[in-house]
């Protein structure tokens, strides 16, 4: 089949899209795994941060400061290229993770997104009306009960829009794993461009694929947001 297009090589587009889509599994896998692990890390960091104990708060703040203050690419390089320099890493039981680019990518993305998400969650917790927690305290709920039944459900609703943005930036960050030899969609696109030297056709088609992914993430969170705030809507 041959298509005649004036400006672009349409055959190449038709050929390269299925090739690039072979990498979508890796992209989604990286996104999903590091999002779940990152959220877990973020919750731990959040609990440490709001604990009010300085020996828990200080390390969390340093951690967030470092991971939000340096480029994710540098973090990926430190973990993938840098850690093998250290003997104790190579001798540790975690070495099988750090030996593989995939493990390094998951670790880097998790540590990075964890720092950002914990700040988002903190924003949500701080946004909860004090009157509600005071009322819960007056009703005799313990600190733990107040957090689980009062603060958390409201905070989740408050930080969902910001969180969905962070999932989108995480999805965009997964493209960086192509710099550490992983063949995600971007990695495959770069190989195709290196062979065909047709950057417009390949990269622009890939941009559309990423745009669709972004749209899917936005829509999914939109549905969840709508469902979580249905009690507000019914009043209107």
């Amino acid at each position, binding site marked *: 089949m041959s298509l005649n297009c004036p400006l672009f090589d349409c055959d190449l587009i038709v050929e390269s899209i299925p090739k690039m889509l072979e990498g979508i599994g890796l992209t989604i896998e990286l996104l999903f795994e590091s999002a779940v692990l990152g959220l877990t890390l973020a919750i731990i960091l959040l609990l440490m941060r709001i604990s009010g104990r300085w020996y828990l708060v200080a390390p969390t703040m340093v951690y967030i400061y470092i991971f939000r203050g340096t*480029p994710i*690419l540098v973090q990926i390089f430190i973990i993938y290229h840098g*850690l093998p*320099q250290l003997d104790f890493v190579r001798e540790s039981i975690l070495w099988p993770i750090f030996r593989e680019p995939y493990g390094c990518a998951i670790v880097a993305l998790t540590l990075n997104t964890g720092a950002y998400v914990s700040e988002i969650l903190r924003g949500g917790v701080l946004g909860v009306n004090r009157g509600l927690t005071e009322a819960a305290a007056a009703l005799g709920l313990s600190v733990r009960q107040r957090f689980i039944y009062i603060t958390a459900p409201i905070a989740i609703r408050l930080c969902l829009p910001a969180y969905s943005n962070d999932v989108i930036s995480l999805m965009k960050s997964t493209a960086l794993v192509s*710099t550490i030899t992983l063949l995600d969609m*971007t990695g495959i696109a770069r190989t195709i*461009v290196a062979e065909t030297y*047709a*950057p417009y056709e390949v990269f622009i088609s890939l*941009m559309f694929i990423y745009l669709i992914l972004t749209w899917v993430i936005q829509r999914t969170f939109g549905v969840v947001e709508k469902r979580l705030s249905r009690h507000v809507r019914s009043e209107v």
Partner: protein
Amino acid sequence: MEAVTGWWDDFFWGSLVVVELFIVAIFLTVLFGLIGAGAKLSGNPVAKSIANAYTIVFRGTPEILVLLLFYFGSAVALTAIAQVFDPEIKFVDIPPFWAGSLAIALIVGSYATETFRGAFLGVDPGQVEAARALGLSNLKTFMYVRIPAMWRLALPPFGNHMLSLIKDTALIAVIGLEETLFVAEQAIGTTGKPFTMYIVVGGIYLGFSTIITLSVMVLEKYANKHLEVAR
């Protein structure tokens, strides 16, 4: 750390490239942001849909992809044009510095578009009407009323955009610009100490982020100083 000894001057020059990139890109970011916000707020449907497409595309695709497209795309186009004049030419490219700063400025500019749009909408319409009533021209209203009122609102999110911008400069090493990451790669080639070198790069970026965060704090204080008296 002694492995770094001979490399400090290279890291210094690399950092200087980051600073240059940042200055060029921040200027372009503000420009793209203002144009984008202007287009979105204008009544013109064509300008509006172009601006919408701009923010959707540049906010929804990975930064590195935009960068690769700009660098290799421009190289292919320029090479093709150059070959018309001289078939001997094999490869012409835009210097990575310019391709890179343009690409990251377009990306961060798309975020700035939304920020500026929101900030312009946040300006009290009464102030603009008052300026009109005083007979100020459109340009003067824009320069003396809208801009001073909107930049206070735009400053906190714009500080975050500056932080993303400085961190995005690291990506430009991928297309071969001699900035800090590139220096680190060379240093690793000779010393074989990747951890040390990349930690140095991380430290440099952490320094830049700290400077930006502190500057934004000072600027915010300056922007809101008229409010302090009231307290």
